[in-house]
């Protein structure tokens, strides 16, 4: 038994506004391969009286929080938040997958969900002599957990640093002082821990005099922009910074990149935050680069399955990977490079390319890496 008070839950999430049109489920990438059906779940909650048993609803953990459902909804219902809320009931009872438990514990203790030591967080930049963030520095570069620890994604952070330095952007980093943003914690349903981290981080930023920041990951970007209490701080994704540089002609390309590129919109950048044009503008500015669009792009971009805590969970139908579908779509365009701008996307798509033995045809690259190559 995993009983919740469905009446108050439905009211809190405004589920009564639902008109049962099915747009959420129809757009849901996971509904294709698992039992997840947000529309029906809402109806079940509405008709349950005051008690609803979540027992056996493992499909709740399939949600990638890609936000297709909430953007499509004509009645301003947010099924994604409903699912996150329902996960909370599992977390409260400690009824979660061991991997999730580990990730949550690691975040609490080490400031990252990757079970990496807190005092190694700034190590990636030890050779770069970057300025520590302090009062008066224009931007905080919030690196994020994966770019800090993951060797593949570290390359993205390093590329970005190269670009920004070349363009003369004034920024600082927090090194070991940097703490996880809590985005995944929140989406795994651990609202309490997220609350704590949010308060802690906000305090730290205040202490360092941060007015503007940018992030490597759209997930961190989204957390600071939308999940944290509004505090007047300007939050951007790095592609927005780069687009600003391109527009202001502050970025000089000395090289060329004679490659056809197709761009994959990360959910947290695109659907969540409407950042569609900036990454494309940056890619288009690279001399020699030829942009090809996949059919499913922008608001229709197919989720890579990396969000919503899914980096720690297999889901109920691990046999079929959305990232692989996505790579196939990219291959169909004939592009040589599948570009993206999200550490999670980078990882899942990279793995999918390997799984499909397509390394010789398609290369998965971050926008920052591509730009850095052409400087």
């Amino acid at each position, binding site marked *: 038994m995993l009983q919740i008070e469905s009446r108050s839950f439905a009211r809190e999430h405004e589920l009564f506004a639902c008109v049962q049109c099915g747009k959420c*489920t129809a757009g*849901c990438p996971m*509904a294709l391969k698992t039992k997840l059906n947000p529309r029906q779940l809402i109806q079940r909650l509405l008709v349950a009286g005051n008690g609803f048993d979540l027992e056996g609803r493992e499909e709740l953990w399939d949600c990638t929080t890609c936000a297709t459902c909430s953007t499509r909804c004509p009645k301003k219902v947010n099924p994604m938040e409903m699912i996150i809320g329902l996960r909370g009931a599992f977390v409260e009872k400690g009824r979660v997958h061991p991997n999730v438990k580990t990730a949550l514990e690691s975040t609490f203790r080490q400031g990252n969900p990757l079970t990496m030591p807190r005092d190694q967080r700034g190590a990636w930049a030890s050779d770069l002599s970057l300025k520590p963030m302090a009062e008066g520095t224009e931007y905080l570069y919030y690196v994020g957990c994966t770019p800090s620890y993951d060797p593949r994604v570290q390359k993205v952070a390093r590329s970005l640093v190269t670009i920004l330095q070349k363009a003369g952007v004034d920024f600082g980093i927090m090194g070991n002082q940097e703490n996880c943003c809590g985005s995944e914690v929140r989406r795994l349903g651990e609202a309490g821990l997220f609350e704590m981290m949010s308060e802690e981080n906000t305090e730290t930023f205040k202490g360092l005099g941060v007015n503007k920041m940018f992030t490597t990951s759209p997930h961190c970007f989204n957390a600071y922009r939308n999940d944290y209490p509004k505090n007047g701080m300007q939050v951007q994704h790095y592609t927005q910074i780069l687009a600003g540089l391109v527009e202001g002609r502050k970025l000089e390309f000395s090289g060329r990149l004679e490659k056809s590129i197709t761009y994959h919109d990360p959910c947290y950048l695109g659907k969540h935050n409407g950042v569609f044009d900036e990454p494309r503008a940056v890619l288009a500015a690279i001399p020699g680069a030829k942009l090809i669009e996949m059919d499913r792009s922008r608001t229709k971009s197919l989720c890579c399955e990396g969000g919503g805590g899914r980096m720690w969970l297999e889901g109920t139908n691990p046999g079929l990977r959305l990232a692989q579908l996505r790579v196939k779509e990219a291959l169909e365009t004939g592009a040589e490079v599948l570009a993206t701008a999200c550490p999670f996307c980078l990882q899942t798509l990279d793995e999918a390319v390997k799984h499909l033995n397509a390394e010789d045809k398609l290369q998965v690259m971050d926008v920052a890496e591509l730009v850095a190559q052409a400087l």
Partner: protein
Amino acid sequence: MTAFDLLDTQRQVPAALVIGGGIAGIQAALDIADAGFQVYLVERSPSIGGRMSQLDKTFPTLDCSACILTPKMVDAGRHPNIQLLTYSEVTQVSGEAGRFHVQIKKKPRYVDVDKCSGCGLCAEACRLSGRVTSDFNAGMAKRAAIYVPFPQAVPLVYTVDPEACVFLTRGVCGKTFKCKDACTADAVNFDQKEEMLEVDVATIITATGFDVFDPTRRPELGYGQYPQVITTLEFERLASASGPTAGRISLNGNLPKKVVFIQCVGSRDANIGVPYCSRVCCMAVAKQAHLAHDRLPGAEITVFYIDIRAFGKGFEEFYDRVRAEGVLYRRGNPSEIIRRGDRLLVRAEDILLGENVEVEADLVVLAVGIGPRQDAESVAQMLHLTQDVDGFFQEDHPKMRIVESGVPGIYLAGCCQGPKDIPDTVSHAKAAASAAMILLARTEKEMVPAHAAD
């Protein structure tokens, strides 16, 4: 009304102004004129007729829209008590109920309406013949820079499109004007200037109509991206015998085999600011699904919907009939349209099955909703009308005073007050005419003693 039935010229009668020459404006004008009052019917475009003239058939009787509308247009055009002011706009209104003073701008047609007989030689001769996009055909056909919007136009007089005409945009059009040379009536006149007209009226009826929803505001439905995705308005032109395909429902010459209709595009969608129901789309789709079934033998026709609002007289029966013909209704609002190979896939949940479905389509028709006119705000300012939250003109009371605008003497007719189907529009327009006629009758009474004293 016949030609022998002319008005008693001795009678001094007050006048009404009707703004908008769609079916609402035409009906209101006809009622008032038939009762013996003068009417100025002002229409912005070159012809009266409005949205109804673009439709192929009307639900639920499948009457040909042009066949039932054209006689009304002709009646309005030749009515001795109606002064048609097409290609004209109201620019200023002052005064109050019983005595409004109105300024009307007559835009230059560059064609002398008294000389033009509508023969079409000019359009044939025009350098841009077949190269200018036809708004009337929802952008699906081409015309010349000198044009009549459609063959049944009233008045049947040509107009030079100032946005397209080579002479008007560039200052020269070869050595001689092709259109001018072709005209045997010497009607083309590029020296025409804008004219201002001032009239006094006792009452004003606003019948400015609606704009259809722009579906690119829901980009996931692929309108503008996939040529196979069209709107219901475009479908009307495709289905129309006088349309760009002469009634063949075809795309690039191919007859679609799988047609999907999607309802509530730009209606009942609070997320993009159109929370209201557009009232006509369910039946428009039912009618179009029937036409598709009729004209595309063997085609699979699917309609995706949330609720079927078949509420009017004979509507439910028509909906029953369309289903019985084999049109498949599936409950579910599609979330997106994607391309797979050369086919489109409409992705939806069939809610009644509780399953996600991907329905192949070679024609997708989006049932676009009805919205206020783009310039509703400026019209509202000019007439001191209020707008409701959705942008339509606000009636004085939602139940009891649905044609009164809140400004005494100014009445609302048709879709400018909110979405309506044709019979509801006609009723509303006649109701506005009734209200206006009461005021006109009173005004006339007040006029009589003044003249008796002369």
